[in-house]
């Protein structure tokens, strides 16, 4: 059975949506899975709605998550939940900013990585795999802040 895990990350331009989806894709890639990641960027970088799809499993065909088939919808901006709701499967899990205590973040810009911490509780990858991917995708000066953010999201402290 070729079970694909479908994740959609959504938010506004500049929030780190694409960075978050890159990290998820890399974690799955590192775990030896087939991965596809899709995004639309361009004009959407100017503060408009942005979303990115990540799919992994034994073999992935389309890079886009079909409507109603997302296992997880990770939303970085509260007002973008409704815009993306149609993508979530009836049994899918919504992970949004309300689930992370933002005041516990050293830098609020790390909200994308904090939500990955929350997402990580639902997936089979190890913390080490997540943290390695976070570090590979961010400059060294941001490593500590973001590793911390990952744990804030993970433990829902």
């Amino acid at each position, binding site marked *: 059975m070729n079970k694909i895990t479908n994740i959609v990350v959504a938010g*506004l*331009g500049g929030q780190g949506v694409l960075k978050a989806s*890159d990290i998820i*894709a*890399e974690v799955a*890639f*590192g775990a*030896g899975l*087939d*991965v*596809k*990641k*899709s*995004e*639309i*960027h*361009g*004009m*959407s*970088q*100017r*503060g*408009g*709605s942005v979303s990115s799809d990540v799919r992994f499993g034994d073999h*992935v*065909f*389309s*890079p*886009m998550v*079909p*409507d109603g088939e997302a296992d997880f919808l990770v939303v970085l901006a509260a*007002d*973008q939940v*409704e*815009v*993306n*709701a*149609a993508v979530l499967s009836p049994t899918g899990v919504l992970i949004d900013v309300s689930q992370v205590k933002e005041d516990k973040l050293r830098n609020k810009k790390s909200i994308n990585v904090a939500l990955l911490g929350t997402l990580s509780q639902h997936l089979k990858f190890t913390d080490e795999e997540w943290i390695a991917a976070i570090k590979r995708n961010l400059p060294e000066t941001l490593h500590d802040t973001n590793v911390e953010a990952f744990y804030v999201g993970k433990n829902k402290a």
Partner: protein
Amino acid sequence: MQNKKTQLLNGDEAVALAAFDAGITLGTGYPGTPSTEILEELERIGGHAQWAPNEKVALEVGIGSAVAGGRAIVTMKHVGLNVAADPLFTVAYMDLPGALVIISADDPGMASSQNEQDNRRYAVAAGIVMFEPSDAQEAYEFTMRAIEVAECWHVPVMLRMTTRVCHSKSLVKRAGVAVPPSRVPEYVRNVSGRVMIPANARPAHRKLRETLSQIAQWNERSGPTQVIAGSRSFGIVTSGIAFQHVREAAPEASVLKIGMTHPLPIEAIRSFAKTVERCLVIEEGDPYLYEAMRTAGIQVEEQPPIFRFGELNVGRVRRILDGDSSPEAKPVPGKPPALCSGCPHRTIFTALKELDCIVCGDIGCYALGALPPFDAVDVSVCMGASIGLGLGMRHTLAQHDAKRVVSVIGDSTFLHSGLTGIAEMVYNPPLTGHVVLLLDNGITAMTGMQEHPGTGRSLEHRKTGKVVVEEVIRAMGIRNVHITDATRDPAAFGELVKSSLEKPELSVIINRRVCLLAAKSIKEYEKCNEQNN
């Protein structure tokens, strides 16, 4: 764990990697979503890449490189090929000893474009060989194949990418795909094959058609056509990204996937169609495969016309398969993009709105001046069009309205194709004069901060020759050239535009203020370049 030779790349990065692995001599192009990252990545991994002022020049540089025996890759978005169409149609006739690979990155669904033209039509119209990858692995492999075909038949080859191929990441293996090492370029004269005067072009056209029929034969025998054996009752012919959606939506169907979509392996398609009871074409964009199959007398069902618009996806392919052409649910509208807070363009559009101007816009971030809260752009067509549009309106409108017309153009767009607009303005000035606003934010902002000939820095941000726009504009014959910074003094800017509109003269107002998002990087590049001096 994945094989070490496997990487997670998007289609653009995969093309760059293939170009690098093939020892490409030169990469050139003009930035345009979704093609921009190809040259940036090529430079990042150690290849030679440079930005041209526009796609036509880029293609001409690429032709020159291939004539000299080099391997050149020329990148652009779909509408860029319109700009490069003049050399494109004639280079098809030419004898190229090197490899010329042209990347057309199409944007079905118009994620960030002004139209959704299907550039497979160009392959047919110009007689150019075309490959269509469906993911990053194929983007890598087909780039290699393109070089191989180009050097074997001495023809230019096009790779048609689409947004979802360019900007989707998937696994890419380098192993097992290679082309012969590139030769040391040397010049061999071949006047009849390269000087396209009528006497040479007539036989060259015949030769092109002969070559294309040879390549079609090759495509039938050894082209990158893939057959997925499945149900006898139902078969699908497809290409590009649509193949991936089809495999997911119809895992049981027989599928014929075409890798080289011009010239088509029409006999392979015919044979496939005979093996299934029902044959359907699923393609993104124009009914290109469908029309070719029908012309060849192959029985095939057409997808409902509503699926010609926008991107395909798994859901839409399922609807095609179900024969469901009922109106589709409209997606919940997201937040539209907007000019950044603090963007220098904001002040400009506020002023133009206050002055009740008729604004001929252009292609760039400032196209967002058309959206609320500004609602300040009246017409926008293509790169560089603002000046010609403004002149045409000035020649036509009654004087009181003609005097309200301004053309607004960015710095990169101006050097791309605004200069000829200035020539037109000097040559055929409207009775009321005209006012051009050149919004110089020091970078090609919309596509993600690329350099251009006016920045004085090369693709890799090193110091190089600089085109000083005000000097060029003065030299072309415009006497009223003003340099302003509206952010610093909005009132003075408003006054300047107002007084320029009142004069029956030609004026160019250059508003110079660096893009807020680029300012920090530009400072660093300049500092770095100073230290290296």
